[in-house]
């Protein structure tokens, strides 16, 4: 699976970080979330799906390819 992050939409809520802290990062240095991994292991699917669904501004997409 591959994660798409739209940094124009992201407003740094950090819900993704709470759901999958090994995949998403938020620091004071950037005003938006960043991806620690663009293609996380399949074993992280549930956490990544939770992250995608919990984004209040729909900045995340999950691409299965």
């Amino acid at each position, binding site marked *: 699976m591959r994660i798409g992050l739209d940094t124009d939409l992201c407003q740094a*809520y*950090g819900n993704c*970080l*709470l759901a999958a*802290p090994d995949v998403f990062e938020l620091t004071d240095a950037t005003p938006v979330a960043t991806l620690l991994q663009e293609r996380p292991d399949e074993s992280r699917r549930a956490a990544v799906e*939770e992250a995608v*669904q*919990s984004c*209040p501004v*729909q900045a995340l997409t999950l691409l299965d390819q």
Partner: protein
Amino acid sequence: MTAERPDLRRVVVVGASLAGLRAAETLRRKGFTGELILVGDERHPPYDRPPLSKGFAAGAVSVEALRLRQVADLDATWRLGERAVSLDPQARVVGLNDGTHLPYDGLVIATGARPRRLPGLPDQARGLHLLRTLDDAVRLRTELVGEARVVIVGGGFIGAELASTARELGLSVTIVTPLPMMVTALGPLAEAAAERARRHGVEVVEGAGVTGMVVDDGCVRAVELSDGSTVAADVAVVAVGVIPNTDWLIGSGVRIESGVVCDATLAVCEAPDVVAAGDVACWPHPALRGELLRLEHWTNATEQAAAAAERLRTGSGPAFATVPSFWSDQYGIRLQGIGLPGRADSVDVVDGDPAGDRFVAEYRRDGELVGAITAGSVKALLPYRRELMRRFASAAGEMVPAQ
């Protein structure tokens, strides 16, 4: 992946807002190929409600930007502008307001909630508003202009956020609330919410109710308070909580408490192959030892809908032991919380100032962590979330499976 029940050919989802949409999406994403019907009483396709009290009310967010993204291949029949009026769980039929009977094999109840009205107020007057739907918000924002004097009745999330929005627009704002502001969310830190609002120029009247309204020529002129005083108003917004939309279930045999009563797995107790999710549902959260919980958080609507849909699709499921989370944007700061801080009996501020821009607070009940709230430091919530997930999962493991 757990196998799908072969007898599930047609699923009806009543409620076409966030929870209904996410339930439908989950069914499809997990492989449901049967017929899917969504019924929604609003004419609009699913849209996002949180901006209605914030960016949308301020005119900074368009109607188009509110639309909830849908997976392209949802392949559902949409019945928008239609309302469910009855349920027969034995015959497995939902009745609609136009007389249609919709048979189902599986049903998702996601009818949400509507704003509570106050006794003693007129049903309608120019300047008098409730805020729940897009149509409500469109009407409201056309009046948040010029020199309008805004009185907000209620100091919860909607009231507090709307006050912030109206101040941003340069309007004069009074909040009238019988309870301390944001007390349900913040518990003992509620005082900080009122302090923050006052610092941004909001007049906050706590401990007073609203008994009536002065209406002249069809327009709101003033709000009458329980202490005998009146506050002049051009716009009055009543934001005193919501009532779950369960009227259509009266007579169905489905038990209603603070909402539609589900078991721990989100199955509706008296109705086979019916689940519920979102603002309308209450269920025994494992961490509360059987006490029913109903949540009105955005994040819960999405997460609970996914769990309820999977429960419906497979015919079984784990106890829903979610660690709730919520946020509220006010005056340029963002409050973010997890767990059940509203159920706490004590709070410790471990960093910063709760009335300031940055703080972290831990909430406990009987000495055990039940939640945490922060402003400006979402990462600080991570260790608390881990602990709550562990604690809630362990409480779920101790529950007798409710099947």
